[in-house]
């Protein structure tokens, strides 16, 4: 009934040089993967490190871990630190994207935005101002479909944070696999938890995926938190 891969039907592929706004979690990594599947060149990753834990825009683990991911993917990484104040964050993001444009002559930006109109519209505005195209390949994507796609495409992802009732520390260090998918379907039915975690319910970290040349290994972990807010700090090699 539904034609398969209709988006490739008779289209003329136009290849672009793209930078990916990269957090090290499942969404931005899968967005990068889709860009490469469409034969675009990923010129660089851009990671923003906000000092504000409440940042509306950025959820990024420590710099060292993202560096390891970029190394494994063999893609240059632009690191931008920001104080995390709302408007300063946007200026810093603008600066980082401008840097990617100057250094790598990129044609556009890729993001892992799924639902957040706040995030998506601000990045769209920055791209428009810098005369860059903007790609949001996960935009409005069904959350269970996203998890299934990650599993089917051999993404190895672990849960590094949980921040909503009734999630607790037992969810930390879990892999996104079929059992995780089934459990989140149940959670969604009972508690309306967003299974892909874009509402901030879950933080994830990608240990391996088709973009990487080698899998990252967890060398150390520290768990802290209380009630329904838990974080697992990891070190990877």
């Amino acid at each position: 009934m539904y034609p398969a891969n209709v988006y490739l039907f008779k289209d003329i592929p136009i290849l672009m040089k793209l930078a990916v706004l990269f957090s090290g979690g499942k969404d931005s990594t899968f967005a990068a993967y889709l860009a490469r599947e469409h034969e675009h060149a990923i010129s660089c990753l851009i990671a923003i490190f906000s000092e504000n834990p409440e940042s509306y825009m950025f959820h990024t683990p420590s710099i060292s871990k993202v560096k390891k991911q970029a190394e494994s993917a063999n893609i240059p990484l632009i690191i931008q630190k920001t104080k995390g104040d709302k408007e300063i964050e946007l200026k810093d993001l603008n600066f980082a994207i401008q840097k990617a444009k100057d250094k790598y002559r990129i044609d556009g930006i890729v993001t892992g935005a799924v639902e957040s109109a706040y995030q998506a519209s601000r990045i769209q505005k920055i791209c428009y101002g810098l005369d860059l195209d903007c790609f949001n390949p996960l935009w409005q994507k069904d959350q269970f479909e996203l998890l299934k796609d990650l599993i089917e495409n051999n993404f190895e992802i672990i849960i590094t944070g949980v921040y909503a009732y009734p999630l607790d520390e037992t969810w930390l260090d879990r892999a996104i696999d079929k059992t995780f998918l089934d459990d989140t379907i149940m959670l969604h039915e009972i508690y309306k938890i967003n299974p892909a975690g874009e509402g901030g319910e879950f933080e994830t970290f990608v240990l391996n995926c088709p973009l990487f040349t080698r899998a990252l290994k967890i060398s150390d972990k520290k768990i802290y938190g209380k009630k329904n807010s838990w974080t697992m700090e990891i070190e990877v090699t």
Partner: protein
Amino acid sequence: MILLIKICKIPFHYFEFVKPIEDVLKKLNIEFITVHYNDLTSEMFSKADRVIISGTSLKDNSFLDDIYKFDWIKEFDKLVLGICGGMHILGLIYDGKLKEVKEIGLKTINFNEEFFGFNGETDVYELHNLCVESSEFDVIAISEECPQAIKHKHRLLYGVLFHPEVRNKKLIERFVKC
């Protein structure tokens, strides 16, 4: 059958501007076919009960050079919904004029009459740098900047400048079911 026409020049934009519309149709279990406007055939039109023309990215206005490829709109006697770039096309086919107007993000617009179940103040997601004005269409909704929903005065042609596949999926549901 719904004929969903995509206007994206770069196939990678499919995920943002076409797939969310497909997902609405899949949820309703409605049969559809998605095709780029360069690949349309007369057989597709004869099978289609309705047509939806998608939007595309801010940087991708290449379809504006191909407006003559949409002349079929004047002959097609069933319902057509144009979304963003799709609305530009409807207006331009009927001698409309484009204006540079940029709106990005969530915005409240005002429907002055019922339009596929929406009426009065409504929050919508905007992503455009142009808008179209054509005297052949009645304006059903406006923002502070420009027409947001239009209906042809004599034909079954409807256009929305905002992206209903983001925050107003019901509009697409009602369009395909009405």
